[in-house]
């Protein structure tokens, strides 16, 4: 589904910063402000991913605890995309550009409901998703950004299809195949 007449494409959603992340996990009582102060890091100019990496590598919190703190803060369920990966068919029901812009991944669906994971929760997402799934009630859940990004790999064709596509084009065959091999190995 390519969502060609998507009306909400101009809606902007505020990105969660590194400072937001730190403030949230302190507020939700997963770490103390003293733990943050001890790191002697200025989080005010850090992205979410940068702050997340600092916190995890400092061993003061785990990714599981960060996920719990974030989902608690936004009063959402925590959707574990790593343990329960969604199907490719389901993920592709949202156009990649929209999914990537709003950091949303369909997680599961029933006849009446669509469960969508996001790393950037906002009430505005409901209307955006509702436009794509007009007949379903939208159930939003939280997933960490790295889980959302991993799910985006499902938009890529499988390895053999990508190689066949490169060969059929007949241009830069070797460099493109090497690139695909590296990307596949890193995925």
């Amino acid at each position, binding site marked *: 589904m390519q969502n060609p007449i998507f009306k909400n494409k101009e809606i902007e959603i505020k990105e969660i910063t590194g400072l937001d992340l730190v403030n949230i996990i302190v507020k939700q009582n*997963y770490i103390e402000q003293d733990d943050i102060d001890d790191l002697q890091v200025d989080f005010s100019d850090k992205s979410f991913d940068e702050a997340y990496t600092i916190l995890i590598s400092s061993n*003061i*919190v*785990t990714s599981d*605890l960060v996920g719990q703190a974030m989902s608690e803060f936004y009063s959402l369920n925590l959707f574990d995309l790593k343990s329960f990966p969604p199907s490719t068919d389901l993920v592709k029901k949202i156009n990649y550009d929209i999914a990537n812009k709003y950091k949303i991944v369909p997680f599961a669906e029933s006849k009446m409901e669509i469960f969508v994971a996001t790393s950037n929760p906002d009430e505005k997402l409901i209307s955006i998703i509702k436009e794509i799934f007009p007949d379903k009630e939208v159930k939003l859940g939280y997933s960490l950004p790295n889980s959302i990004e991993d799910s985006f790999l499902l938009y890529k064709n499988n390895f053999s299809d990508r190689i066949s596509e490169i060969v059929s084009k007949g241009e830069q065959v070797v460099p493109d195949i090497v690139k695909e091999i590296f990307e596949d190995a890193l995925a």
Partner: protein
Amino acid sequence: MDKIEKLDNKRKILICEDEKPLAKALELKLRSAGYDILTTYNGREAINLFDSNIHIVLLDLIVPEIDGFGVLKAIRQKNKEIPIIILSNLGQPEDKLRVKDLGATAYYIKSEMPLNKILEIVNFYLYDSK
């Protein structure tokens, strides 16, 4: 002893958990709910810290010095009634059977238990189950 805090006049929880980020988060979460917390990262200290002022024990099975099975056995010899909640990633049936035989009150797979759920469990065993 890495960190111990003792307060009086509140329900007191003994946590024995060697994953420090989890132990700390658990301690903060339960304290924010009004409980007093004693946290230790090893089994021997858990046994030494246990006394009649403790109202509930949250116990991991894989902890240094004396494992959770040994801690459970030692605490049960001192007190037959106190709730002892096992939070462990050991999920084999024989582990569950063993802790049941040793007198554990309940057994939960740690990785499947968000902190809010653990708080609910603590509330249940301290208040609702009475």
